[in-house]
């Protein structure tokens, strides 16, 4: 009641301070017109910062435009940029590097995330504290994570090499995670796994908590073993949630840039040159703006397609 009085008082005060000209104009408008009035600024902002750059990028992708030569003649090249990208073995190599990174990071994150969720779901003593501690890496900025893992991976002073040395017995300075060809991709997978496994765990935990207890009680009445309960109840019922986590991480890892750029910058050589790093090199080192716009559109369509599948999967989980 007090709240209602307070609210009506606030409305009265707002009506009093509204200039009469504005009040008269608003009073004459229909509800639909007022709705448009409120939505228009947001729509204009969205058009200016999202839709216009997208349309401009599509337009540039059919030209030979170079941003470092703004006064040079811009020629229409049709589909030549797309043709060039989709037949270039170097870009294809960058795509396979991306695929390997996406595959291994998602596989490890899903397995670890589901195991952690399964353990947390057991509700042991102090599980709340452990959940908070496990979630901490996810809350950090990728820039911060990239920087401090660069220090951790230092061969002379980094903690990571000393831990590996203590476990395996190999000298700490005998390997360089970020500078050796076989180790650099794994260095990125480790950091991404460290940061994003908690996210997969959260989604899997939601899936495990959605399974009703009476199903397990019925299984126990039927004398099903814990192993059988896991394979016949837990895993199938949590599977839509696991698929959701896989899809979301797949989209995020496909366009991963910040962490790779901070840790290896695509090196050594082009061992860790994922698609977004190639795109950056084409756009801001070689200044092939038209070409890189076409590349960006290819990546955008791929991510948009994956997002469609994600939304479809999400709707299926919601309807459960």
């Amino acid at each position, binding site marked *: 009641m007090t709240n209602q009085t307070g609210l009506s008082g606030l409305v009265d005060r707002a009506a009093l301070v509204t200039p009469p000209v504005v009040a008269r104009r608003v009073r004459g408008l229909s509800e639909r017109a007022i709705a448009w009035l409120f939505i228009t600024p947001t729509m204009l902002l969205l058009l200016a910062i999202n839709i216009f750059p997208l349309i401009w990028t599509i337009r540039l992708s059919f030209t030979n435009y170079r941003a470092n030569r703004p006064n040079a003649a811009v020629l229409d090249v049709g589909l030549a940029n*797309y043709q060039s990208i*989709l037949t270039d073995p170097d870009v*294809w190599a960058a*795509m396979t590097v991306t*695929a390997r990174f996406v595959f291994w990071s998602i596989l490890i994150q899903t397995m670890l995330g589901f195991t952690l969720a399964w353990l947390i779901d057991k509700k042991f003593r102090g599980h709340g504290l452990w959940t908070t501690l496990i979630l901490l890496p996810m809350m950090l900025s990728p820039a911060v994570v990239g920087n401090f893992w660069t220090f951790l991976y230092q061969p002379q002073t980094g903690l990571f090499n000393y831990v590996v040395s203590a476990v395996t017995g190999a000298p700490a300075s005998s390997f360089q995670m970020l500078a050796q060809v076989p180790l650099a991709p794994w260095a990125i997978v480790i950091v991404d796994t460290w940061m994003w496994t908690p996210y997969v765990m959260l989604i899997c935990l939601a899936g495990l908590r959605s399974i009703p207890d009476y199903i397990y009680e019925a299984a126990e009445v039927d004398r099903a073993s814990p192993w059988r309960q896991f394979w016949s109840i837990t895993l199938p019922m949590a599977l839509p949630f696991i698929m959701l986590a896989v899809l979301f991480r797949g989209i995020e890892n496909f366009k991963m840039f910040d962490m790779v750029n901070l840790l290896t910058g695509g090196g050594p050589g082009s061992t860790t040159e994922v698609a977004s790093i190639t795109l950056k090199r084409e756009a801001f080192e070689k200044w092939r703006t038209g070409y890189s716009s076409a590349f960006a559109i290819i990546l955008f369509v*791929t991510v948009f397609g994956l997002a469609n599948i994600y939304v479809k999967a999400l709707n299926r989980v919601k309807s459960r």
Partner: protein
Amino acid sequence: MSEIIQGSTPEVAPTRWPRALRRGPMETVATILIAAGVLMLLQPFALVLYTYSFVTTLAGVVMFTIVSKFPD
């Protein structure tokens, strides 16, 4: 009265939209196209599959956008 007790479902108004062209199955076809396109883009085996990956994904995305407006 007996219908109420038996809990019969209310009749759904018949639609002239062909069953094969309904949203559910068509979205599934579009999803398969998108997934195939993404797999073709990321596979390391054949350059020709990589070349045609974008067209496949684009076809799937356009189809998904259109068929998501179809009736259920």
